[in-house]
């Protein structure tokens, strides 16, 4: 465990390294502990794959106060602290513009790509990039495909994509470099809905074929 300042009003706590689901699980437990029993002056926390960024008000707290408090919580956080993670099913039509490339790259038929993609419960490791974009994994080994060599300038909202061992859904139209294999009608982000975000870090997601 390492704690370092990232700015004069935020710090980062590393609970491990790389893309390790067990480490990521501990990140979500620590975030849940913070949400349940907040230290006044901590404004928000942001889970990454192996780290948690904690923002604080420097008029109220010092780095050392936040670091000591977090270090103690990181030691004591257990599965008991887990927030009620949701399980969400997402219907997908597998007809994305990169389905052919992914098929060829993996040596699978498009139907097999779709079948493999729908066979796993994915974990929301973290969120970012655009509001509501959930980084999920791990994609079955046979489906692992690198990013596009040249990112698209416009990816439509609702595009279902993979990149490396990750999968995700573009919540809003944005640029993007992931391989687009399908689309869904569900909205990961809808500002008029309460709550506006469908996914939260730590949730599990299953894609369902939508004929």
């Amino acid at each position: 465990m390492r704690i370092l300042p990232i700015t004069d009003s935020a710090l980062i706590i590393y609970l491990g390294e790389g893309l390790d689901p067990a480490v990521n699980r501990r990140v979500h437990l620590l975030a849940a502990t913070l949400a349940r029993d907040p230290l006044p002056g901590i404004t928000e926390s942001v889970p990454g794959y192996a780290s948690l960024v904690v923002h604080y008000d420097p008029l109220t707290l010092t780095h050392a106060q936040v670091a000591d408090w977090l270090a103690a919580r990181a030691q004591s956080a257990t599965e008991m602290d887990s927030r009620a993670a949701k399980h969400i099913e997402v219907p997908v039509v597998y007809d994305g513009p990169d389905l052919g490339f992914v098929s060829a790259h993996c040596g699978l038929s498009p139907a097999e790509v779709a079948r493999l993609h729908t066979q796993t419960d994915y974990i929301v490791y973290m969120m970012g990039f655009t509001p509501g974009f959930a980084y999920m994994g791990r994609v079955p080994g046979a489906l692992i495909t690198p990013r596009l060599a040249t990112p698209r300038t416009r990816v439509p909202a609702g595009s279902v994509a993979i990149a490396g061992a990750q999968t995700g859904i573009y919540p809003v139209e944005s640029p993007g470099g992931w391989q687009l294999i399908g689309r869904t009608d569900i909205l990961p982000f809808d500002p008029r809905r309460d709550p506006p975000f469908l996914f939260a870090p730590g949730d599990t997601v299953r894609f369902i074929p939508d004929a």
Partner: protein
Amino acid sequence: MLEILSPSLITTVQDGGRRGWQAYGVPVSGPMDALAHRAANLLAGNPPHAAALEIGLGGAAFAADVDCLVAAAGSGFSLTVDGRPMRMWTSVYVRKGREIRLDRMGHGNWAYIAIHGGLDTLPALGSRATTLRATLGGDPARPLAPGDRLPIGPATRPLLDLAARHLDPGFIPYSASPEIAVIPGPQAAQFSPAALFTFHSSLFTISPASDRTGYRLGGPPIPREGISELVSEGMARGSIQIPADGLPIVMQADCPTMGGYPKIASVISADQPVLAQAPIGTGAIRFVESTLEAAQARYRQVLHRLDYGIMTLDSDEALWL
């Protein structure tokens, strides 16, 4: 209502920023120059984080359909009301229909117009800050256009009581070639001594490709040899990323919540407004090392001078009835 007569390249509504949603990927946004934004609000008799206009990278003109009290603050602009020069960093009583105009003057990029009562646009996720990249907030969530009309919140004090108050911004070291204090970033120790030396000893320019998301710097590339691959982690305004080409990017108000490039340093809060106002394209900046303790002490000091530095002008120069 406050009507946009002619906007600048980027005129948006900004409050103190949208907090509490970064775990879902929502940038904080808020003003590029938080000190000028706060000063304009305090001078206008508003809470410090009230929604105000941010005028960026060009002149702009506005008019209200009611008598109002406004305050303009920022760097690189001058203020006129119906053609008459008025002081910046000063509260001004403006009769309805008069043209409130900001023109480019001197060095700087961003100015704020706060109006007493605040801009009462529809909040999104608890904030009126406009996030252009996510088309969020702002109502409309886009740069403002001629003819846009923004609701003004109710007055809480008599407008004339608030007029002719001034704040001297001399304690904010705006400059065309500022020294910007930084503290080490979380990956600073992974950079070579030569890379750190280059970063701390070189002059950098601010590229015209800069925007509210990040300031891209021109100068000698920072070598990245020996830096291990990073999985995405949270970052924040002020974080200085070193991408593959070695040219630093300083994250600004619309900073994405996550990043995968190593962060060599972070601009201290007190100097973020100074960097934001350093001229894009022509400025030359240099980074100087500071410490976390010194950074937080400077931030407290700057806020104190801002919150307690307002004085009432003797003359009636800020009143134009």
